[in-house]
């Protein structure tokens, strides 16, 4: 799908949708949780990113409902979005595995000490 690694906000957003469809506020909270409190995606950024991902066909609107007199959409990953996320996860896993393997070959490297 893409030659470039996913940028962090996109990766977090797709990850937040990976297990179950979510609406805007739930997505915002889930992104905060997935990033362990490091990233708080504000409303403008969130809907900007959702708009982009909808246009790219990576996310779809799962359902629309009226909650408290307001329209609320629930978003879900499309097949392409799930595929892209799986590819990115595999790429990150391969890099992490390689880092762990190299550190285990030279444990002192973890402390920055070389013989």
């Amino acid at each position, binding site marked *: 799908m893409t030659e470039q690694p996913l940028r*962090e906000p996109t990766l977090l957003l797709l990850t937040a949708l990976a297990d179950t469809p979510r609406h*805007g506020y739930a997505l915002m909270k889930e992104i905060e949780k997935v990033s362990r409190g490091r990233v708080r995606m*504000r*409303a403008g950024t969130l*809907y*900007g990113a959702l*708009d982009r991902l909808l246009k790219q066909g990576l996310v779809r609107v799962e359902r629309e409902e009226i909650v408290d007199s307001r*329209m*609320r*959409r629930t978003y879900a990953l499309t097949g392409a979005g799930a595929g892209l996320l799986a590819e990115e996860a595999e790429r990150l896993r391969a890099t992490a595995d390689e880092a762990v393997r190299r550190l285990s070959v030279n444990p002192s490297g973890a402390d920055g000490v070389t013989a």
Partner: protein
Amino acid sequence: MSTPPRKQHWTIRLYPPAHRRQYGDEITGLIAQVRADEGRRASVLEQAAVLAHALRLRTGTGSAQPVGRLLARLAPLVIPVASVLSLTLLAVWAIPPLPWDGPRAYTPSAYAAWPVVLVCALAGRWTAARIAAACALGSALLSLPLASWTAAAEGQEQNRATLIGLALAALLVLATPPDLPPTAAGARRTMALIALALGAPLLVGSVTVFEAATGPYTSTEARADPLRLLFFFGPLVLAFPVAMAMARSRAGVFLAALLTAGAVFLVSPLGLPVEFPYGSGGMVASMAFLTGTGAMVRYTVRKNRRHRGTAAVG
């Protein structure tokens, strides 16, 4: 279900109509929920973010818009250039002047924030880089009147172009969509390479003293002007990464076509009266031509390759 829809939040009204129709109710609901769950302060921050996003969409710099994506690709090129120039100007300001330099005014407060922008961007701390860029923008704008106050009209004349350039660079960093930060390894590598390739000749060349002939049998100690070095090395260092960045999108290729046309205009008889600082017109025109055509060729090759790939899969 039949309840009439509630009024949208006032901040939503600033969105373009299409975006307001599509997301207005949802964003209003989200702000209300943030206020209910997290209090007034959190909701004010959300409203500020919505205002900023509305402004972004109104100016065509959203992440779903071609200009927004182009800005995200240009940021890793602009940050190292503005930063190494600022660092060099800071270094030149700090060393004692030579008689060769003549009366020269500097505006160090406008340069100070840029090395911070670069360090934060290289470290992947994009929010911190944006805060530093906002400081850089503010200090560049403040330095304009300050330069004329401290060094009269000459001071402003000497610094105007540099300060406007630095302010525009800071604006570009701030206008980059926050959900497309240039924090990926590739973007950081590009920034580091440009900073090194441009920073080394700029910094070393600007502080190195050499003997310049001033007449037969006479010479004086001299130093190269940082801006002259920037106009010489900048196009050389930037040609390849700029072409690669422009080749990635249709908006970029449109810009590449404009760049090529501009280069042709500069070398045509019509463009002869256009003066470039330090007589760098020839260099700028040839590198702009190479960059523009390189980007268009690269875009066409990529597009054809993708078409062939699709045809093979289909």
